[in-house]
């Protein structure tokens, strides 16, 4: 059992008052007053509708909000939900809040939620992103039911997305996790997910919380822990997801939180992923991938320009990371004008060489992740151009082809990984 010393006395007192629960919903927040009201409403409705007989609690782990987010969460009356949704609970639905720090740290927030789940002996848990404005009560049911009734340990969400949304997920995270770990989990970097108390306890005990694990990107680590720990994983379709507002300047922090975490996990999980070949589907409720074709405005010219500029300006950095042949090929395609394309094979080799360079720490690991940003923009350009007029099926096929390329070239990564230099 994890030492719960990091929890405040006040929070522990509140947990003792709640007592044992069946379902725990974790809501990490940081200045989310605008959205949190509708989210809590949906969560409460979801619990009242789907689990009226179960003991449930909403745990808000707040990262020092200054807009009254915790008060909003704890202040929402259950009667409002009952009136609005015409549903009735047979048990008390608690909502408690704790401030874990004065700044946002998703790792610490998740640790707080997991510790609460362990202390309250929750059977099924759910974490909801405070940015998911379009959450519906069905999300609660879809993410909790497989854990509570079917014995799964992790329920990863799948969404209906625009074909050009989440390109880091479709062009790197999903194919790489699938090729290396052998499981086809579409959203390994999850903003909403359901999990069992068993997985919570296991992760709480095994994760190296004091070695920088309090930083962002813990959600991906959680998925990988479930995979490597042999836990039962499934996917559940939630419906449409509004993309989080992110600007071009946010790409590097996003890469750190996702690709950085994945590269770092590869080192610890080598014994697991080095022996895996091919990949397996995971049980999925509903669609595993739904794409919509609404037009999105994409500045392709700027994407290509930033790629070309990156390849030319960062040549000295790439010389430390990439093999001479890959670098030569990148320089060649950067010289192409309108015909510029970043082929799947070259992209996969680039990513694998970055992963191997990260493992060997050829330069500062953070610099390796930063250097990937311009190359990713080049890949995004190619993906957008190739799929501009493609149907949902075409896009899905292209993603599948990329995944197979990642699987095919896995020995290439292994070879680099094992080499001394």
């Amino acid at each position, binding site marked *: 059992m994890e030492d719960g010393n990091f929890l405040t006395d006040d929070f522990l007192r509140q947990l003792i008052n709640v007592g044992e629960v069946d379902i725990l919903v974790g809501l990490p927040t940081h200045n989310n007053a605008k959205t949190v009201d509708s989210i809590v409403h949906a969560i409460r409705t979801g619990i009242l509708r789907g689990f009226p007989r179960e003991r449930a609690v909403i745990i808000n782990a707040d990262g020092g909000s200054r807009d009254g987010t915790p008060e909003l969460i704890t202040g929402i009356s259950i009667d409002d939900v009952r009136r609005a949704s015409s549903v009735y609970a047979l048990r008390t639905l608690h909502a408690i809040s704790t401030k874990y720090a004065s700044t946002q740290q998703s790792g610490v927030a998740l640790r707080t939620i997991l510790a609460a789940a362990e202390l309250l002996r929750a059977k099924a848990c759910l974490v909801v992103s405070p940015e998911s404005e379009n959450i519906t009560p069905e999300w609660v049911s879809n993410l909790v039911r497989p854990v509570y009734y079917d014995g799964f340990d992790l329920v990863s969400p799948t969404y209906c997305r625009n074909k*050009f*949304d*989440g*390109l*880091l*997920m479709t062009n790197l995270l999903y194919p790489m996790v699938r090729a290396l770990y052998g499981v086809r989990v579409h959203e390994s*970097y999850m903003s909403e997910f359901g999990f069992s108390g068993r997985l919570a306890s296991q992760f709480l005990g095994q994760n190296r919380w004091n070695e920088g694990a309090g930083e962002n990107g813990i959600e991906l680590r959680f998925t990988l822990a479930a995979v490597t720990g042999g836990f039962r994983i499934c996917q559940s379709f939630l419906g449409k997801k509004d*993309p*989080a*507002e*992110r*600007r*071009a*300047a*946010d*790409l*590097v922090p*996003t*890469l750190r939180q*996702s690709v950085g975490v994945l590269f770092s996990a590869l080192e610890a999980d080598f014994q697991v992923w080095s022996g895996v070949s091919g990949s397996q589907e995971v049980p999925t409720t509903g669609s595993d991938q739904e794409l919509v074709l609404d037009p*999105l*405005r*994409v*500045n392709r010219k*700027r994407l290509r320009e*930033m790629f070309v*500029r*990156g390849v030319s*300006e*960062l040549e000295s*950095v790439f010389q*430390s990371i990439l093999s001479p042949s890959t670098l030569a090929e990148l320089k060649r395609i950067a010289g192409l004008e309108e015909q510029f394309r970043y082929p799947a094979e070259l992209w996969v080799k680039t990513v694998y060489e970055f992963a191997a360079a990260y493992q060997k720490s*050829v*330069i*500062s690991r953070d*610099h390796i992740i*930063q*250097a990937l*940003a*311009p190359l*990713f923009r080049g890949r*995004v350009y190619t993906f957008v151009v190739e799929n501009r007029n493609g149907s949902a099926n075409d896009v899905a096929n292209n993603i599948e082809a990329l995944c197979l390329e990642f699987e095919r070239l896995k020995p290439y990564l292994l070879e680099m990984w094992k080499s001394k230099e």
Partner: protein
Amino acid sequence: MREMIVNELTQAVQDLARGFAHYLPRLIVMLILAFVGWMIAYVVKVVLRSILRFIKFDRLSENAGASQLLAKAALPSATEMLSRFVFWVTWLGFILLGVSVLGILGLQEQIARFFLFLPRLFVAVLILFFGMLAAGFSARAALLAAVNANVPSPRLLSLAVRSIIMVFVLSIVFEELGLAEETMLVAFGIAFGALMLGLAIAFGIGGKDLARRFLEEKFVRNKKEQDEDELSPL
């Protein structure tokens, strides 16, 4: 007369023999010290080379930009250079120790000075190495940040960062070595002053356009480009 010459010759030969007898054991001790010193220096070199290879010192040196400098000067790798440096310093130390045994007046003072200088030399080499490491790291960080933020002339920015740090490092190194302290101080003052003046003039003259461009990019073009770009990576 003849007897006097014979006596003087005998005396001279005796003096020579006495001198030779006086110096021969010291010479032998010096040669033994030099030989033992060579062996110890060689062992130190081999051990140090293995340690440096184990800790991947060449990679550190590559990060610091030292390897590139060595390669340009057709010199061996940083590991080899440092190993050889330590070998020669160690061996030279033993040779000088041996020479001091000979008891040559005046030379002993110089030898003592050399031994007093050794720690400073070692510290200076360390400062230079870690300075180059810091300069290389900061220059690369600046380059990456500038490229990802789409800032104009990222390499120039990176070079400026490296140069400023290296000027500081070299001034500290020379101060540590006690070499041309005043000259270095003046040179540093002039170089730094010139750099700041140059930047002030450059920003003063070009600042108007730069500020306009910056504001345009920040509030007009960027907004337009952001509006056009609705991609979300995750």
